[in-house]
């Protein structure tokens, strides 16, 4: 369960997130959809205690994110947009350190690591140093790691950027199952319309720090009297997601990722 009310974040006098409110129910898959720079990552950073909101309230699993940081941290898992693995450890060691930090029962640690590394097709490479991995492999490792402690809430910030279609499908299948089985809440960001449409129960469209609309894909289409999510998006934001202006840095980064796909 995630609840944000009147969430605002200013960097100096630039407002990155502007008075956003939304609620995600337990077990729901929820997408934050919007172009680069919309404020998606900033929202996730506030929800995960990495950034302090300028104003507004956040609740996660009924914990007050600002006041009950430790309880909040215990209950979520996160896959960051940018890399966050230790390159000088092996894949297995990265997983193991995470398991220890999140108090995963010792008896289960090995079997969970094996299951997850197998899922992301890295089990054969478990004893290799992560610095020898491609960008796509690191991404898969981070996803496996984020799921290791069976969090009640999972944040995925552009999780599939740079992954091939097959791995994407595997990932969404597994996340979907886990959400169902464990009643896990998933909030993910993406700037792929099809990904939001296929995997999210509800979608929130966000642009320039403002939340424009929330609803199921069908509701968004109905509201805009369009028959595809793409057209609905165009109608709501006045531009297409694909030919938005993208900062050179973002272009470079996503090129790096896709080059390193596997």
């Amino acid at each position, binding site marked *: 369960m995630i609840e944000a009310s009147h969430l605002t974040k200013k960097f100096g006098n630039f407002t990155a997130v502007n008075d956003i409110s939304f609620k995600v129910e337990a077990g729901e898959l929820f997408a934050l959809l919007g172009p680069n720079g919309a404020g998606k990552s900033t929202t996730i950073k506030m929800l995960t205690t990495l950034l302090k909101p300028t104003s507004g309230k956040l609740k996660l699993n009924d914990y007050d994110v600002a006041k009950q940081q430790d309880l909040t941290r215990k209950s979520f898992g996160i896959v*960051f947009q940018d890399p966050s693995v*230790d*390159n000088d450890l092996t894949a297995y060691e990265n997983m193991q350190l995470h398991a*220890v930090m999140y108090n995963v029962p010792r008896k289960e640690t090995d079997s969970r690591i094996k299951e997850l590394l197998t899922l992301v097709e890295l089990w054969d490479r478990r004893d290799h140093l992560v610095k020898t991995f491609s960008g796509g492999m690191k991404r898969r490792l981070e996803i496996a790691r984020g799921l290791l402690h069976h969090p009640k809430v999972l944040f995925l910030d552009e999780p599939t950027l740079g992954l091939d279609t097959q791995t994407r499908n595997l990932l969404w299948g597994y996340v979907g199952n886990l959400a169902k089985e464990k009643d896990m809440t998933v909030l993910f960001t993406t700037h792929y319309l099809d990904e939001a449409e296929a995997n999210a129960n509800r979608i929130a469209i966000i642009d320039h720090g403002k939340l424009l609309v929330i609803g199921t894909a069908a509701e968004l289409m109905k509201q805009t009297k369009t028959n595809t999510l793409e057209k609905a998006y165009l109608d709501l934001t006045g531009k297409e997601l694909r030919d938005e202006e993208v900062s050179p840095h973002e272009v470079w980064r996503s090129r790096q990722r896709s080059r390193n796909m596997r």
Partner: protein
Amino acid sequence: MRIMYYLWLRQIKRYFRSKSRIVGAIGQPLLFLLALGYGLGSVYKAAGQGNYLQFLVPGIMAQTVLFSSMFYGAMIIFDRQFGFLKETIVAPVSRLKIMLGGAIGGATTAVMQGLLVFIISLALGFRPYNWAMASISIIFLSALALSITAFSSGIGSFVQDMQGFQAINQFLVFPLYFLSGALYPLTHVPTWLKIIAEINPISYTVDALRWSMLGTSRFGIIHDCIALAITLIVLIVFGALRFRHIEA
């Protein structure tokens, strides 16, 4: 405890996997030992001070541990740049455990570097006056190492880049080192230098090392131990307080 053990282990593994770090951190002390030990040895002897290499080795061991421990702070900055820091600071682990686990790991590797220099010194002709006493120096090296890794974690948690970190090294740590009694005896130096040396924790570490390895002490071992203990406590508190506000 288990968490701190794994964070400690992470530092140890990274240390043994980085051959260049081991070799690199040996290069500088070796240069000092050769250039100063042999270069100034005869002058020192002519001045009636005895064997300079004997005098120098405890100072160079302190130097090695000091700078290896400072390097630990740089590793925190690398962790930030490569993103791993985010993983540790969103984890439901107290900042104190993260800070101490890593700092003890960094201190362990720094002491190993110091012992490596000790072995090299033996090959160059250094002899402790009493082996049982010399083994006590591990305690002093550990106290220095942990003080400085705690200090450098504090620095690493608010200095954002390597330039800023290097500035602290240049303007604080190098002067403290050169103005301690590590390289020259404090008996014949001007008063201002003596005063600086007497409020400088590095001087006391070096003095304690000379006490255990050479059997000579300037300040007295009791004073050395008190100074080392105070330094350790103050710097751990400093490190823990700064680290609490660390941001990825």
